[in-house]
């Protein structure tokens, strides 16, 4: 089994107004477990599309994506959803915490559909509590998202992305809507947690400071890596 995320000659194009528009062109790279990669580039160059394809939220026009030895696009929809649940963690620019649930409950949502892990060292609840403590939100664990600041919500979103012990975490502009201080906190957390959890971390960002915390940085321009 592979120990990395490998993207090979990935292409993506859309039909718009009867014309084909190329978003990604022959993009290839890989990220090993425990490594991190920042993808930068101007707006509209396909960064988020690339992340969505790796996260199986979108499909490539051509090329392959190998996530730790699995070609996710060969999986039927149900297995693909299960794969995403167990292998990939998402962090978005907006935290997308459910306003009706507490922070702890929000964090546990991905674990709701995760198959039971008999050999797991800890229960999802214990893991959630530990990770919440790890990001400094223990005192806000039972608060609702509406009672937290944007930075706190995003920290909770980071924890949520890790709850099922994924192999890879995909973060799309995770600090895009945060103030500098909060962005710093999130950057640090992502970097540290990537090591602690031994996950491959791919971050799409405009923030130089965040990119600097990653092992590698790639730039996309007009859909191609430069």
């Amino acid at each position, binding site marked *: 089994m592979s120990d990395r995320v490998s993207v090979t000659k990935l292409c993506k194009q859309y039909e718009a107004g009867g014309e084909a528009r190329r978003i990604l062109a022959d993009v290839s790279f890989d990220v090993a477990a425990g490594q991190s990669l920042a993808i930068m580039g101007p707006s509209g160059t396909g960064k988020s599309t690339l992340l969505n394809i790796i996260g199986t939220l979108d499909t490539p026009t051509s090329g392959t994506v190998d996530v730790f030895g699995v070609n996710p696009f060969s999986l039927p929809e149900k297995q693909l*959803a299960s794969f995403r649940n167990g292998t990939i963690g998402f962090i978005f620019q907006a935290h997308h915490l459910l306003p009706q649930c507490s922070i702890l409950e929000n964090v546990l949502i991905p674990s709701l*559909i995760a198959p039971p892990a008999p050999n797991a060292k800890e229960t999802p609840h214990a893991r959630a509590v530990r990770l919440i403590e790890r990001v400094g939100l223990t005192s806000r664990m039972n608060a609702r998202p509406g009672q937290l600041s944007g930075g706190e919500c995003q920290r909770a979103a980071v924890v949520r992305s890790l709850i099922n012990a994924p192999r890879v975490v995909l973060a799309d502009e995770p600090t895009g809507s945060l103030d500098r201080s909060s962005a710093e906190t999130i950057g640090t957390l992502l970097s540290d947690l990537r090591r602690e959890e031994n996950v491959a971390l791919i971050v799409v960002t405009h923030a130089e400071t965040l990119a600097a915390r990653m092992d590698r940085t790639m730039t996309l321009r007009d859909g191609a890596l430069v």
Partner: protein
Amino acid sequence: MTFTRLLLRSLTYHWRAHAGAALAAAVGTAVLCGALIVGDSVRHSLLAITSDRLGDTQFALIGGDRFFGDDLAKRVAAQPDFTKSFSGAHAVLLIQGIAIHEADDVRAYQVQIIGTKPDFWTIGTDGPAEALKSGEIAINASLAHKLGAAVGDAVRVRVSKPGVLPLDAPLGSKADSAVILRAKVKAILPDKGLGRFSLNANQVAPYNLFLPIEDLQTKLTQKGRANLLLVAGKGAGSLEVAQHALQAAWTLDDAQIRVRKEEALGFTELSTPRVFLDDNFVSTQIGSGISTYFVNAIRANGKETPYSMVTAAGAPLTDADLKEDEIELNAWTAEDLGAKVGDAVEIEYWVVGLQRKLETRTASFKLKRIVPIEGLHADRNLMPDFPGIADVDSTHDWDASVPIDMKKIRPKDEDYWKKYRGTPKAFIALKRGEQLWRNRFGMYTALRYPLSNPPKLLGTALPPEMLGIKFADVKNAGVKSAGEGTDFGGLFLGFSFFLIIAALLLMALVFQFGVESRSGETGLLLAVGFSTRRVRTLLLIEGVLVATVGSALGMFGATAYAQALLSVLATRWVAAVGTSSLEYHAEPMSLYIGFASGIFMAAIAIFFAVRKQASRSARELLAASGRHAEPFSPMGKIAKIVGVVSFVSALGAVGWALATGNRASAEVFFSAGALLLIAALILVRRLFSPKSEAALVHTAQGQSAFQALLGLGVRGASRRAGRSTATAALLACGTFLVVAVGANKQDATVNAQDRSSGTGGFALYAQSTNPVYEDLNTKKGREVVGVPDALLSGVTVFPLRVKGGDEASCLNLNRASNPRIVGVPKSLTERGGFSFASILDEKIKKEHGWEALHDSNSEIVPAICDDQALTYILNLKLGDTLTIADEHGAPRKLKFVATLNSSILQGSVLISEESFLSLYPSQSGYLAFLIDAPFEKSAETSKGLASALADEGFDPIPAAERLASFNAVENTYLSTFQALGGLGMLLGSLGLGVVVLRNMLERRGELALLRAVGYSRAAIGWLVLSEHLWLLVLGLASGMIAALVAVAPALQSTAVPVPWLSILATLGAVFVFGLLAALAATGWMLRQPLLPALRSE
């Protein structure tokens, strides 16, 4: 964290949105369940009426014109098995009559005159407080209301005295045998309990007049007789036990069979005061038949003996070798005629045809033998009890129903009468007699047995079934009729369809709106690995829980809705039910079905609402949090073609109708209207195309800010062309249905003079309480009834024979298990009239549909019925058969060979008069009449006939009025649909507010931008409002224009005014409601901070 907790969190957090959806679901369930409760209530009320009108009566022995001893009840009740099973048997004398309020001369026809014994009141409730004494009557509230009578008032009761011999029979009783009884109203009984006693299943209370049975027996000269036996019990006894008890108690006297034993003459004889022995009875006997007939004359050698009895019989009354063309005269007659053996003898006699037309016939014989007036030939009892003849001492006192020329009766004839009475003067062979004067009432006037071989039935009970006397299971039949009656649950579900759909759409809209506003949440769940199915299931469960709460709330609403409907049904819509005796009743099963259906339907609506949302990709949902522009999809070529074809077809249909003068064809104009609606909706869709937008914007250029905003708003409707078209289309369809259905009420006066119309082209329809026997189309017949010949000049009366039964029309909510049968004369077939909906035999053209009645070569009787009544009242279809009991209780099959469109003949099963008489030979006279009169003299004709035949209870009404009474039911249903459809539209217009909210939420960034560039809140409000007003106006206008075309025939009619006020009020309310909903939604959105939306954009 569990799924349940997640669900609960979502439910509680989004409670406001859910409350809206739950309320809409509550409305849907309330309407649905309420409709079912209305069905339960009507069914329950019909069952209660059945229980009222029958009391504890389980079985009834209906004698009709057969009268048995009124002590039969006691004899039956004394049978050992009977007492174990039943609480009692009760003799009643029931006859139709006329009640007249003496002070005001107000009349009520078709009154049930019910002679009872005090024990009658034990079978039910609400009887008089004190037993009725002689000269006292009790009337029910309906009759009291009709007469305007109060306790203490004097009432005259006019009834037809039943003859021993049916009036249509040869030498039947005289027609003018009515008797009048004067009595004082002792009590007015409510229209419940036994006050509405009736054996017919109908929710309309009959006119009932109760009096002591002895008073009625005396007046009818039926001392000690009754014609109805009721068996009461609590359901423990079986029909077999009752019938067995009847058989054990039944006597020859009950069967009106007399036994005469003549030791000297050596025979035992069975005869009947009804003159003719019933053929069924005869068929079981082995005695020798005798038939004595009244002849006008016996002629020979140019001489004539007038008015004599002639007996047809076998040996020993006649010579064993008497041939069919031979005759024997008694010595007196032979001498009178100077006849000797071998001479030619002729007899002249009458046979009674339809409408008592006497046909004179003759028969020729050769004199075989002259017999002395002694022994068997001197038996004056051979003459049956011909009414008016047999019971008088002198020929001068003869009072027969046939026109006897008294001048012909000579003194010697009078002497013969005094000496020998009706001793037959001639004897012929039995077979010949059968050929000459067999009639539908029977053939034999007596059966004789040698003393050595008496009739087997003597000394034992005579099986009453032989005479068609058997108990009918009236209780179970009544319960069945009520239980299988008009399904008001289904009917009101149909009427409430629009309301239910509106509630469900509103619920789906509100729920979808809530789900769409949570698209980020949905996207996240998908992103973290929830499958589409799981997300959809989660949302669906959430929705179903909301719907469950809503449906539970709706159960309370259902009660209120049903009670409101019942209240309106008992008052404003009473024409649809014909009774105000409707009681609220809800069956647990209906509540369960209503509750479950409410949830189920809501779940389906929610399923469609969430399906689209959950099928969007996580990326899409997360990226835009549900905000996305609907790409404009240009209208397809097929849609354009459909639009053009629909428009051209609509114009073509209208043009054709105008060109052919077919301006009243509702079908053509309705089709044209529907086609125009399709064209209009396609045009509306086209208005939302970019090209149309540009045109609208162009027109707005250079105009005021108000107009510019209006233009911009109108253009906004194109942003969501599909949603905008759907909104306008819903309003258009609702408007079309409400206007088209509301205005398309039936008008009985349209083409009333047309023979193919529902009146059949008849000016008048009449019913008579007592039978009319005379032919009103002949001078003689008019003379007899006292109608001036000139009055009926140019008038033709088509008399109908009627066998009473259940009303088989929309006026009866019960299932007509024992429908009224009407015999249609051949003359109506020749005249034609009415229009046929369908005819079984394709060879018969619709204009000759009546011929189907005579198209029978089998035992099955061809029948015609109203098309709707056949389906909905009898629950049958064309070609089906209905088994009924004939006069003798034998099952006979009627086959429906044709159906009529709505007409004044609704309510009855029509068969040919010939078939009618074969089924009910004893039914004499006519009880219903179709009167073909010049319409300009219909009022005069009506008045004249009513006056001349007042004693018969002849009650003519304009045929159009009768048709209108049937149409009133349908028109009330249309009003109901219009009212409930209008309510549905009002509810649907609330949906416009939800659409406004959804549109604004999706475009809040855009609206925020407008605020940012300086638009005031009012300007933005007007912008949003104008867009939705545009949809409202487009929808209402499209529907209205199409509906106006559809109802063009109704607009031309003057008799049934189009209910413009209610239609316009409904549409006005929809407009105002829609406007208010849009205003409220706009106002709410404008109060939300818009600028943050701009930032998030």
